[in-house]
């Protein structure tokens, strides 16, 4: 029996995926788990594995196409078998591999709105655009249902004619999926989540010493970094502060059972957050290796759906950019994010005298619907203690 290959979704909210490449050709045989296609989803480029064994057939999606999640884009068939004629709907229980992909049995109602819409333009506006040499792809329609009207074309034409900076919006670069999503999600978070910020500077001498000690005898680029140690310390601190590892559900608070630390990583088009699952129970060496793998995959755009889902708390470290301190935007449904600056020598009081110490400034952004100032301060204080004596916490 033919197995459908569907456009996977990472989250319920995802509407489309862009097909970047087929790793197999039509007619080629595929075994379950082999990379079958590459998809640019909302967050990253992911490899999608074959949902079963069979011969790839009935491909309906072309490379570059933006496809609603849940839509069948090809079939895996037995030798001699024909793919089902109508490949439009995912069969019930369509066997997609990742958990995310199975969530992709998106309701068809959502599909219509998700389909790439052709430009809606009135006949008059279309004629006028042609006459005036205006690119209708660059016009935002103001008519009913966003229809481009002749007024919109006239406005675009006069903006073009005046040649000034007013024409600039028309030349805006189209966003990649990732950049568009970053824009949408940060706007949504910043405008709907009541953020508040706590800041604390901590002496990082012990942290640096501990990290250096771990690197003794290891090849460069193999031992845990400051970020890795921070991930481990945060995860262990969160064990005692479940409210910081919680989610706002819309009408209540969910305390998350696992502590999965998202690590913000800069990539070409923006930022992605790769997840270290169960970071509180993962030995530091293992955590470090996993974090390195994730970083590499993120940079090459090869993160898999599982790599970026399930985070419960985010660490964003801009230390390598020599930033002293900064505030970060929470990634809902998480309720907190820790922004960490560079470790830099600073003049501080030491035992009543003036001393110089490597200082690290942490800024915790919290969702006030989930946590209050006192609880957040307790967590941050405990984390500061852990940073001052990492060896004790991570043994």
């Amino acid at each position: 029996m033919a197995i459908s290959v569907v456009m996977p979704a990472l989250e319920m909210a995802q509407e489309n995926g862009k097909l970047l490449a087929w790793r197999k050709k039509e007619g080629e045989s595929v075994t379950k788990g082999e990379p079958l296609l590459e998809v640019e989803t909302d967050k990253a480029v992911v490899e999608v594995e074959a949902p079963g064994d069979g011969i790839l057939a009935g491909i309906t999606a072309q490379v570059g196409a933006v496809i609603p999640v849940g839509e069948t884009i090809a079939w895996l068939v037995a030798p001699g078998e024909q793919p089902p004629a109508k490949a439009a709907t995912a069969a019930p229980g369509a066997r997609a591999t990742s958990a995310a992909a199975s969530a992709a049995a998106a309701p068809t109602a959502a599909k219509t709105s998700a389909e790439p819409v052709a430009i809606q333009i009135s006949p008059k506006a279309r004629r006028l655009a042609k006459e005036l040499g205006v690119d209708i792809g660059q016009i935002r329609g103001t008519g009913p249902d966003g229809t481009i009207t002749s007024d919109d074309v006239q406005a675009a034409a006069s903006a073009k004619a005046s040649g000034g900076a007013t024409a600039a919006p028309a030349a805006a670069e189209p966003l990649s999926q990732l950049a568009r999503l970053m824009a949408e999600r940060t706007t949504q978070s910043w405008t709907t989540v009541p953020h508040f910020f706590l800041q604390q500077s901590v002496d990082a001498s012990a942290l640096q010493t501990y990290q250096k000690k771990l690197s003794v005898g290891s090849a460069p680029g193999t031992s845990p970094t400051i970020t890795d140690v921070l991930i481990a310390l945060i995860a262990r601190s969160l064990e005692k502060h479940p409210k910081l590892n919680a989610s706002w559900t819309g009408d209540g608070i969910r305390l998350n059972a696992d502590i999965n630390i998202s690590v913000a990583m800069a990539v070409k088009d923006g930022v992605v957050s790769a997840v270290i699952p169960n970071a509180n129970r993962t030995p530091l060496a293992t955590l470090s290796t996993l974090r390195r793998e994730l970083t590499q995959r993120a940079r090459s755009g090869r993160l898999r759906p599982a790599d970026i889902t399930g985070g419960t708390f985010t660490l964003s470290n801009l230390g390598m950019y020599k930033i002293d301190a900064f505030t970060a935007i929470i990634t809902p449904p998480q309720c907190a994010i820790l922004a960490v600056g560079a470790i830099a020598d600073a003049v501080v009081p030491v035992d009543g005298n003036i001393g110089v110490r490597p200082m690290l400034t942490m800024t915790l952004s919290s969702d006030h619907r989930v946590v209050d100032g006192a609880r957040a301060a307790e967590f941050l204080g405990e984390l500061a203690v852990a940073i001052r004596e990492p060896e004790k916490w991570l043994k």
Partner: protein
Amino acid sequence: MPETAQRELTFAQAIREALAEEMWRDPRVCIFGEDVAEAGTPFKVLSGLVEEFGAERVLDTPISEQGFTGMGVGAAMTGLRPVVDIMFGDFLTLTMDQLVNQAAKVHYMSGGTWKVPMVLRTTLGATRRSAAQHSQSLHAWLCHVPGLKVAMPSTPYDAKGLLKTAIRDDNPVIFFEDKMMYKQKGRVPAEDYTIPFGVADVKREGEDITLVATSSMVDVALGAAKLLEGIGVSAEVIDPRTMWPLDEKTLVESAKKTSRAIVIDEGYGRYGVTGEVASVIAEGAFFNLEAPVKRMGAMHVPIPFSPPLEDVTVPTEQTVFEAARKLCGKA
């Protein structure tokens, strides 16, 4: 156009005056129909004509629409200029063979030897609480037939001028009067005048949207235009006055100017007059349109007797206003 009189007449009086003037002018003009003589029709449109012209020229017939319509066709072919009265437009169904297969075809099939200079006057329009068999607007049936002309006046002035033109026309003309409009008053010159067929009338000039309306819907469109003015939309209201011949040029030019059009007619919206007119506009003005041409007609149901139900089956000022507002993106 003669403008001497500031006199006002009702729609019914304008019809009667046209008939009387034509009957004085031409002794061949006569009237056949049910209750046209003493009763002067249930709508009192013809009151006084039998006294003025006698029972030979204003002839009460038995209740047999097919019979006396056929009589009208024969009388027209043999030299009279009869005006046949079909009380309710719903009864046109009984006259179909006489109109469609005889009146409309004779001139063509006789190689021009015979002609049928007959006028058939009848009514249309709902909201009179007359139920499903006395409330329909079936003019589209006749617009569909080559060989018939169809006139649909919307004012007393147009009624008089168009009816005189109809009576003087050598072809069969079906003349539709909105039965709800008979008491409506308007300026009607006392003198003789005619209005040519195939010439639409711009009832109101506007810039943003064209409302093409027929017969009973012209007032509805004008009311909607007034409402639209309140939200800064300038509506042009055009009355084609005759559905065949149809003044395509005026309709298309108006739609080209405003870029948007709604066609409003009290006949059924489905497969109706609105579809034809909308198509003419879409073809003629396509590259000047900002929005699809919208049709508004009677709901596709038998007209209910229940007043609240009947009232929602036909376009109103408010529904036309809403549709126009949406089309103009002013929602």
